[in-house]
């Protein structure tokens, strides 16, 4: 308990040197820290979904508006669902369903590949966080 009081006194002795403007400057500095971290570290917010079928670009879909794209492949039709800021493979005729199980893709550079049906869905943005095809 006395340690707590001592700590508080010690802090108060230092805080005595802070003036009103100093608080403002510190608040601005912290705001700059948070702001720069948010804007610089968010990276890879996707703005576009690139859908390929058989190696060729089938469609480039804007991620701003929700829609569903049906992509034809050798096994049947792959259904790709787009919502604001994210996209997923909703249904695929392939046997193992890897691309469907990947779920929603949310960051630029993320890719879902339905290899059996030769369909891929990739998100692209201004600055991609990572390249998910690089191992």
């Amino acid at each position, binding site marked *: 308990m006395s340690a707590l009081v001592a700590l508080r006194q010690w802090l108060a002795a*230092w805080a005595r*040197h*802070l*003036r*009103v*403007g*100093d608080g*403002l*400057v*510190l608040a601005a*500095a*912290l705001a*700059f*820290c948070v702001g*720069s*971290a948010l804007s*610089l*570290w968010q990276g890879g917010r996707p703005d576009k979904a690139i859908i390929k079928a058989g190696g060729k670009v089938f469609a480039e879909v804007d991620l701003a508006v929700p829609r569903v794209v049906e992509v034809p492949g050798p096994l049947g039709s792959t259904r790709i669902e787009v919502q604001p800021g994210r996209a997923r493979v909703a249904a695929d005729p392939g046997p193992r369903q890897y691309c469907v199980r990947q779920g929603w893709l949310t960051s630029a550079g993320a890719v879902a590949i339905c290899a059996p049906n030769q369909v891929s869905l990739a998100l692209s943005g201004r600055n991609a966080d990572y390249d998910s095809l690089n191992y």
Partner: protein
Amino acid sequence: MPIMTPSTIERPIIPTADDHRVARHAAAAIVLTVAEAAIPLPLPGVKPGLANIVTLVVLARWGWREAVWVALLRVFVGSLVLGQFLAPGFFLSLAGSLASLAVLGAAMHLPKRWFGPVSHSVLAAFAHIGGQLLIARLWLVPHDGVFYLVPVFALAATVFGLVNGLVAARLLEAELAPPPGGRA
């Protein structure tokens, strides 16, 4: 005999009290720089900058010109002592110091009622990282990737700016109110 203008060679250089004071403060700053170099730090560029406490005290007590002398002497001599003179770190340090001195020159005119050494310190620390990043971006790492570390540098500038400013404020208080029997 013709009147001769005194030659600069013959004129003896007599250090004034001001020179002595600058030298004393610069020496203190250099000691702090060297001591700080012994502290292991996780990231290049993130340093407490303890020597800036001296700059802040000199700025508050003796004015901007003298603070410039002390800060630049510290940069040059500190880098010579550490074997960093003309190395990249020296130019980063010089750019940071020049930027923060420029900002201090403006910040010292803020109303004293509201803005104390802590404000000066935090603003100077931000100017310091600004100057360093500018040199780093233009010359050492010509890629926007250096700005990725801005939040880390900004946080360090805030924390160390606060700490250095508080220490400077306390030193100033102790200096301006000489204790009875103590030296002024």
